[in-house]
């Protein structure tokens, strides 16, 4: 069974706001596959450009909202691809990221990639349902 997880708040519906042809997340086989989460305001969908630190907080906060609305949580993350715009921000990423992984972090790979709209971070995650 494959089930689309709807955006719990309007701002997290990137298809509506930006035309990105994707669902916020899909549940299947006991796992939840999330679309790459971006630093957008969860209420309005507006882009929240900032420092890597500020953008990371927005992204992780959004993931918390999304996963909890689906009956999961950040504590149930199994894999993260952390996309950052420049590997020089690796330590900064860790400083923020660590704060959200208090109950045991998941597997992770950090990718230095070109992210849309000049964002500094995008998190691509899989969680246990």
């Amino acid at each position, binding site marked *: *069974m494959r089930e689309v997880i709807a955006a719990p708040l309007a701002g997290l519906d990137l298809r509506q706001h930006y035309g990105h042809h994707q669902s916020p997340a899909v549940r299947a*086989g*006991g*796992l939840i596959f999330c679309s790459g989460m971006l630093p957008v305001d969860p209420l309005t969908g507006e882009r929240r450009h900032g420092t890597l630190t500020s953008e990371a907080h927005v992204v992780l906060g959004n993931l918390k909202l999304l996963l909890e609305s689906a009956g999961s949580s950040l504590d*149930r993350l*199994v*894999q*993260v691809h952390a996309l950052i715009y*420049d*590997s020089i921000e*690796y330590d900064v990423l*860790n400083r923020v*990221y*660590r704060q959200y*992984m208090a109950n*045991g*972090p*998941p*597997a*992770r*790979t*950090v*990718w*230095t*990639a070109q992210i849309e709209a000049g964002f500094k971070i995008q998190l691509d995650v*899989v969680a*246990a*349902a």
Partner: protein
Amino acid sequence: MTEKFQRSAIQPENPLLNASRKSNLPHVPGIRVGDYIFLSGMVPIDPQTGERSHGPIAEQVRVTLSNMRHMLESAGSSLELVLRVHVVLADISHMAEMDRVYREFFPVDPPARTAWSMQLRFGNGCEIECVALAG
């Protein structure tokens, strides 16, 4: 109804390959959940010394995949159970050399794979992650 899977962390038997713990990083070497094992990205680390193992890309790929084998076997899985691999190279022109070594580790019914190039930290020539079936 689908059971709620519990996740558990995987550790390599060789502690020198536990980059997460060694450097106090916010990740684990791998996570087991349900039928699957998700490994964190692995880079070329000398399993004898725990130091970065740089050199020709062929050697870096060989070391990384050997370490991946060890990681999977520590968790009761194996290279034969790998389902998907992501190979990231610092230099896209290294693809052919990477392929040459890679095929030694997956000679029969190789996993699904996507390979591309990105900026990598610490002068690493490759970073490789995978998803495998738990043993």
